[in-house]
Structure formats: structure tokens, C-alpha cells
């Protein structure tokens, strides 16, 4: 089924999610996966939904955005493709003094190793920069990847830890 990729961002205030979700529900849009979080003072929503035509959603969100000082985008992204895991799950943590290029350098190491990042959050808290990512690594590549990450981290003056994301089915 055709899916719409929607982003909404604006200065954080109570009620943004309710306002956007109400518009989507009113159009018969079925909200599937989403992440919504506060980035600095902005509230950012990234979501996928199915149902209405992109133009209808765009028109309705534009109207809300104009009233609420939000920025909204709507794109048709075609049907969902398989999201089967491509490797073994790891959690990557990086932290240290903020400087330019931490994300670029660290994620390049992961990409060069054939790793796939499935979730990533960064936070700047005062002088401290923190990156936490969920990574799928090709089987058997973790040790070498960790070594290259450690080298990259040393060059950036940050600390890096790569650990297996274990989950127990109970």
C-alpha cells in the first residue's frame, strides 16, 4: 500500500501531537510508525501513514501549519519494503566534548563496515555531546569495527563503546 512520509516541526508547545494527529484522523489517515521528540526547543515529528492522497494531507497540514507556526512536509514514498535485519544487533555509544564531525566520522566507520544504523539519537548537553545508535553489523565484524571506532574516537577525543544489544524473550 502507498505510504506517506510526513514531517512536522515547530517550536514546542502543548498540543502539537494532538493537533497533527487530529488532522490526520480527520482525513482517514492511518498513522503507523512514528518518532516524535523534542530537539532543543523544537518539537519534531516524523511519521508514516497510509490512507489519503498526499495532496489532501499537505493541504490540511499547511492550513494547520499556518495557524500554529509549524513546518510540515508530506511526500508519497511508495509501498513499504522489507525491513528484515541485515546483521547482528549492537548499541553504539559515543560521548565527549562537542566538536564538528563526530557523527560523520563515527557513522562512516559503521557504513564502511557494512553496518546499518536503524536508530540514532544525539544530544548536546552543555559541552557534552552524546550519540547513541542501534546498529546492525555483519556477522563476525564487530571486533574489527570496534577497533576502527576506537581509532576514530581517539582522533576526535571522544569515548566510544560498542556492545551487543541483547534481548531475552521471556
Amino acid at each position: 500500500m502507498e505510504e506517506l512520509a510526513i514531517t512536522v516541526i515547530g517550536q514546542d508547545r502543548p498540543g502539537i501531537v494532538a493537533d497533527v494527529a487530529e488532522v490526520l484522523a480527520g482525513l482517514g489517515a492511518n498513522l503507523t510508525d512514528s518518532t516524535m521528540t523534542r530537539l532543543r526547543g523544537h518539537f519534531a515529528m516524523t511519521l508514516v501513514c497510509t490512507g489519503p492522497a498526499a495532496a489532501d494531507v499537505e493541504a490540511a497540514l499547511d492550513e494547520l501549519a499556518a495557524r500554529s507556526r509549524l513546518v510540515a512536509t508530506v511526500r508519497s514514498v511508495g509501498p513499504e519494503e522489507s525491513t528484515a535485519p541485515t546483521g547482528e544487533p549492537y548499541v553504539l555509544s559515543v560521548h565527549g566534548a562537542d566538536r564538528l564531525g563526530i557523527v560523520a566520522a563515527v557513522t562512516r566507520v559503521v557504513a564502511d563496515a557494512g553496518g546499518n544504523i536503524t536508530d540514532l539519537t544525539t544530544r548536546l548537553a552543555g559541552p557534552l555531546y552524546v550519540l547513541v545508535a542501534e546498529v546492525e553489523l555483519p556477522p563476525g565484524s564487530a571486533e574489527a569495527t570496534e577497533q576502527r571506532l576506537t581509532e576514530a574516537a581517539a582522533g576526535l577525543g571522544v569515548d566510544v563503546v560498542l556492545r551487543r544489544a541483547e534481548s531475552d524473550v521471556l
Partner: protein
Amino acid sequence: MSCDADVSLDAWLADLAEAGLVRAVVSAPDPVLAGEGAEVDPTDPAVIGLAADLVATMRVSPGCVGLAAPQIGVSARVFAVDVTGHPKTVTSHGTFVLCNATVVSASRWRPGREGCMSVPDLTGDVKRASRVVVEGVLPGTGESVRLTTDGFEARALQHEIDHCAGLLFLDRVAGAHALYQRKVYL
């Protein structure tokens, strides 16, 4: 073994597993998983049969270390646990079934990523006590038992007791960023 009664797998439980039927495991959002299980009479033949089914179903499910009655569609406070051989197990009481169990003390809370046979596509970070004392009643004899355990068995017990109360790990997930797609890479 740190419990007042011997709840490890005895001949009776072995027979129980053999006598049990393998039942279908239900998945969320089946309403049976969200309802509070009924207190049971542990000497009721139906409850003994349920205990047998739980053990039999647990045995045939790969990697399964615990199964609660709501997971096989029965809203009752009965569950089976067996963490024997799991790499994270510290203390283990073997295979056992408890009825009407409650956690009477819990300490040393630790985060851990959990999945559930009834929520096959997701995992989540959940804080659980790594030391617990659990009281319950054995099916069949109706004998009251008190177990003291730790680590992985403690986590499994809390997970199953939650099922009996109509709670899933989703109800205890640590935060909005602590829910994940389950990654099963074969």
C-alpha cells in the same frame, strides 16, 4: 535451593509435561493478555490440566523460559517457568508451575531488554528487580511455597506474574525511546 518447599522438577511434574497439550500461544492485542487473571484453586483438575499444558507448550517453544496462562488464552493466575541452561541464569529452581503467585519483596533493580512470545515483533528496556521473594501455591498438592531467587529467574518470574495481572512488558517499558523492533537475524 533457596525456598521453603521443594519446587524443582519432580516425577510428578515430568508426568505433568507429558500429560499436557501443546496449546497455541496468543499474541497482543488479544484481550486475554490485558485482563487480570482469576485466582485459581490449585487442586482443581482443570488447573492441574492447565499447568500441564503450560509446561508442554513451554517445552516445545524454542528458547521459551516461561509461559503464563493468559498466553494460551486462559485468564488465570498460573504460570510455568524454566530458566535451566540459559546463559544468564544464576539461581535456577528448574521447571515449576505456580498458582496465585505474588512478589513479596523485590530489590536491586536492573534494566534489561525483554521480548515476549506474545509480542513477537518488539522488544523493550524494562527495569526488574534482580532479587525477589515470590510466594505462590503448587498445582496439584496446593502446597504454599516461598522462593528466593535472583538474576534471570527473578526477571522471568516478574514477567510471568505480570502476565497473570494482565500486564505486558510494554506496560513497563522505560521510556518512549526504549521500544525496539525485535531483531532476529538468522
